[in-house]
């Protein structure tokens, strides 16, 4: 007497599906190694079909298959296929265009009150430093350290100060521009990260930046160089200060969500804010790149006051229009 040994139903379950699993595994392995683009169109079309099938097989296997070897393999196969199927968009052009056209201004509008608060903090720092230096020039050294001042302090002659506003040697322009960009961007990015500590360091950073500006403004006003000083600051300052204010606002928004998460859990609120604010910071870094170019090259070359003020107004109008109107309307 001889008959087949007992055959659990999961043996048949596996026999019917094994070919599809092997096919899926081959496709997934190939994607992991060289990307989705390496698949032929008909293979690409198979991936989601096979994935769904494997997913539902895993659901069944978990509840009623007792073959551990099968279950563990399916768990890993489905997890790997899931990562392939839900992979992000990979073309940079697909992401950058819509982001600049819609995502960035929308994200900025969503935190307009934080932008306002952040700008007020900068103004507060500026006003405070301005008033203090006006009262006693010695206070200047409180706000501007020697490296930053590089000769622009109350002991300098008016002529020397004027010269700093129109100087510039052709050689180092690009170096200067890229130094400014990397420095400002690092500060901007730092501001975002510090939002995590309830936004407190962000306020300090913004105050510090405002004070620097305020103290130097007081010095130049004092010498009757107000018009020249602002022509030196504004062409790039409109863009640069706005970008710094936006980074600060992003940091404040993250801190705000942490303290007042609303109906969500703190973790969830933080994640939602974190993703959107990361985008704001990335947009601001692009703005800083533009500002650094204006600061490092344009400002050193063009000395005519009307042209400088003209460019500053163009930027001011451009940014206002962009952040108020861009990306509204139909999708």
């Amino acid at each position: 007497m001889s008959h087949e040994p007992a055959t659990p139903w999961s043996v048949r379950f596996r026999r019917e599906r094994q070919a599809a699993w092997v096919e899926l595994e081959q496709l997934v392995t190939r994607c992991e190694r060289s990307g989705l683009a390496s698949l032929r169109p008909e293979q690409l079309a198979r991936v989601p079909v096979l994935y769904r099938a494997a997913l539902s097989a895993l659901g069944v296997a978990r509840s009623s298959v007792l073959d551990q070897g099968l279950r563990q393999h399916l768990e890993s196969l489905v997890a790997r296929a899931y990562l392939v199927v839900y992979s992000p968009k990979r073309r940079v052009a697909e992401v950058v265009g819509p982001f600049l056209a819609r995502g960035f201004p929308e994200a900025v509008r969503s935190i307009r009150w934080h932008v306002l608060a952040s700008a007020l903090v900068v103004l507060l720092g500026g006003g405070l430093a301005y008033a203090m230096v006006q009262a006693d020039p010695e206070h200047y050294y409180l706000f501007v350290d020697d490296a930053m001042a590089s000769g622009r302090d109350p002991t300098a002659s008016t002529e020397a100060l004027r010269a700093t506003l129109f100087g510039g040697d052709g050689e180092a322009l690009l170096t200067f521009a890229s130094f400014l960009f990397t420095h400002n961007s690092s500060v901007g990015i730092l501001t975002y990260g510090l939002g995590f500590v309830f936004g407190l360091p962000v306020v300090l950073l913004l105050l510090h930046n405002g004070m620097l500006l305020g103290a130097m403004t007081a010095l130049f006003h004092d010498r009757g160089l107000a018009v020249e000083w602002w022509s030196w600051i504004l062409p790039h300052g409109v863009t640069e200060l706005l970008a710094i204010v936006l980074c600060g606002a992003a940091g404040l928004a993250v801190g705000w969500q942490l303290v007042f998460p609303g109906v969500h859990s703190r973790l969830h609120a933080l994640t939602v804010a974190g993703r959107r604010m990361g985008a704001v910071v990335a947009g601001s870094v692009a703005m800083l790149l533009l500002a650094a170019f204006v600061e490092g090259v344009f400002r050193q070359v063009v000395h005519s006051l009307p042209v400088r003020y003209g460019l500053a107004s163009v930027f001011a109008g451009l940014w206002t229009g962009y952040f108020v109107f861009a990306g509204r309307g139909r999708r």
Partner: protein
Amino acid sequence: MTPPLGTETIVTPEGLELHFQRATAAERLVALVVDLGLVLLGGLVLALGLWFTFGAGAVLLVLFLLRHGYFVWFETRWHGRTPGKRLFHLRVVRSDGGPLTVETVLARNLTREVELFLPLTLLLQPDALFADHTGPMRALATLWILGFLFFPLTNRHRLRIGDLLAGTRVVVSPRVALARDLADVRAGGTAPEAVFHFTPEHLSVYGEHELTVLEDVLRKARRGTSDPVVAEVCRRICRRIGWTDPAAIGNQHARFLRDFYAAQRQHLEHRLLLGKRRLFKVARPERR
């Protein structure tokens, strides 16, 4: 089903829970060191090349872009993997199961400025940060900044601040090959005929847990030769299920266990389909 220890549970958009093994702090550190090494190497090569052609400005710019762009670029292009992570089979996934978008990758990598580059500057070149400060103020600031670096060690999920802000987890890419079905005679290995046959009474003793252990024993058993573990397991099972004639098994211990495994699995799976589950050999009282 409760998730195993040390795993991250991700719910796919289809609504199925997947369990990924969580990457340990050590694995992530090593992957990071590899990545930083590559950034440093790439930076060095580029800096040398650019210095002579375009000057210091280009070097500064490229180093900045490399420092921040490296992680964003690779995690976007390679689906949450950088060369370092790939080397150690690590991977970034979103905790809510959605796709890893560019903004998510940006959010988790922009914080490196605070978490990594600032503490690194502090450790390598403290005077660059606070040249004017000494004593307790400096010590406090140092402690504060290092807090960011060690943040992942303070939580169970080993989250960086960037992971927290972006809602991401770092997991180990799973890879388990499909093992042969022990109960499938067509899959090879054993002769197609069953030698031993079991009655329902024989099969009503053990539960799913014991079946899993038996599967493990069979998969690890040495082929061909007689394995003492197999013989011992065979003896115990005979005693427990009341097998009438243990002496008749002879040296066919492996054969006996294989047949018993197939019969037991069929029995339990059949009961499962009817909605009856037996996890252990004796009905254990619920542990408090």
